């Protein structure tokens, strides 16, 4: 069915213009809502591509008005509190924790957090399928796929764009939910 072209009545045109203006203003407001993101992964000076991506994400998210931080920026070595406990405390204060482990050992460290219901619902986990035959990968996938906010796998560094796109898209969704719910998302 093809309807013929229609010129809107003046009242409808004016209503449409008002709605457009309002939507535009509200979207601008939403862009000022920051999402706090903790980025877990390899150290920035690590030569791996995922370490570089972690740095890139921090810079891109900051440019979009979010608060993106690395754990190592927050750790207080003199505090006498273990790193794991400090990470748990940090994670509770952030809207989202993005975990990008780059070795089988670091995948295993995730076990410390994925069963903790104070933070697991805000864990966005990326797992490299290059490690899929290892025990750590398989056990983390088995538990994190239902305990975490989301667990996404990618096929090696050739698919790092999946990580980048997913992080930006999920952070945008949280920003929108915070906007709709006036600050709360979880």
């Amino acid at each position, binding site marked *: 069915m093809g*309807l013929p072209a229609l010129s809107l009545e003046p009242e409808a045109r004016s209503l449409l213009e008002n*709605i457009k203006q309002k939507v535009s203003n509200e979207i601008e407001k939403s862009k000022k809502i920051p999402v706090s993101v903790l980025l877990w992964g390899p150290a920035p000076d690590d030569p791996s591509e995922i370490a570089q991506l972690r740095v890139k994400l921090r810079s891109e998210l900051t440019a979009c008005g979010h608060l993106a931080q690395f754990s190592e920026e927050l750790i207080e070595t003199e505090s006498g509190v273990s790193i794991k406990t400090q990470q748990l405390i940090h994670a509770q204060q952030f809207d989202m924790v993005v975990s990008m482990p780059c070795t089988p050992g670091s995948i295993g460290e995730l076990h410390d957090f994925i069963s903790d219901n104070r933070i697991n619902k805000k864990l966005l986990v990326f797992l490299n399928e290059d490690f899929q035959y290892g025990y750590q990968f398989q056990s983390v996938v088995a538990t994190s796929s239902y305990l975490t906010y989301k667990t996404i796998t990618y096929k090696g560094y050739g698919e790092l764009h999946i990580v980048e796109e997913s992080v930006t898209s999920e952070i945008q*969704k949280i920003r929108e939910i915070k906007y709709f719910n006036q600050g709360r998302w979880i």
Partner: protein
Amino acid sequence: MKMNLSEYYESILQDEMIAIVLAWIEKSGSITEEEILHEIGLGKHHLKEIVLKLYRNQFITVANDFLTISEQGKLVIDGLNLTEEIINGSFSNLAFKNKERSFISNSIHWYRNNYYHQYLNTFTSLKYWNRFHHKKEGSNKESEKKSLDYSVIIFHDILQLISEEQNYGATLDNILAHLGGLKYSHEELDYTNKAYYFLINLANINDKEKFDELDNSSKEMYAFLKCKNIFNSDYHKQKELVEYLYDKKSLSKAKSIFWKYNTDKLHFEHFLPRSSKDTTFNFLGENHRVRQNNTLLDEFVFIMDNASSISDLCIIFNKSPEETLGLLARLSMKIDGIL
């Protein structure tokens, strides 16, 4: 009720048109993609993408190609603070004075917050009514007529709901109390009063002779109010109508489809004795009679005359059947004693 990230599949604020389309769907009550395309001038492919996103996020429901906002979608419109634009935009060009404007706006907000589905249904009715009655030249008389029609359609639906909510008919005063309208004078609520008394007149039509005495415009409104809900749920008929609705050359064809539909239904429904399920105007008629005989005894006599069973009385008195029977037995003994 809050938005939930686990059900929020796709971001929607990165394309302004998504929120605009969402608001346009609410403003229309229900609408097809074809109608949206021709009303807000989007590319077909772009609209498809938008509708898909809205559907995936469960912000809209789809029935026979008609899109309607869901409760989840309402939250998005609330979050975007678009309600004011949609509600006030529905009567911005009408002749209401400021205080009545504010009363109508508050009433529709109340309606939307409490009966979202019915509110959308009313906006669908307004969409069809407006398309059939639009005239380019806006004389004062025409603007007054449009304002009265708008008030009649809106208040007919709101009054009916309030009446159902109270389990008893709606008087003008208790409706105004319900909607925060008692602070306004009758003069300030000019169109609301006119709409109420217009509806009272329609409520007194109970045979064909009285119907034939109405002017054409009142006949049209009578048929519309009687049949609009049946029409709004008949998506097949609506689709047939939409094909003609947007082409000025075939608008008269659309109009004839619409009125034939309504008058056909009217023949079936109206000129038969009223059934208890036909509440189009009954709630107003009963009330008006109560209001005219405004004494306690008259109200009581009226109730007893009109109640056909114990269950009717249970509803009116808001009592259980046992309590109602007990009260009636006591009254009967008392009346016997006095007589």
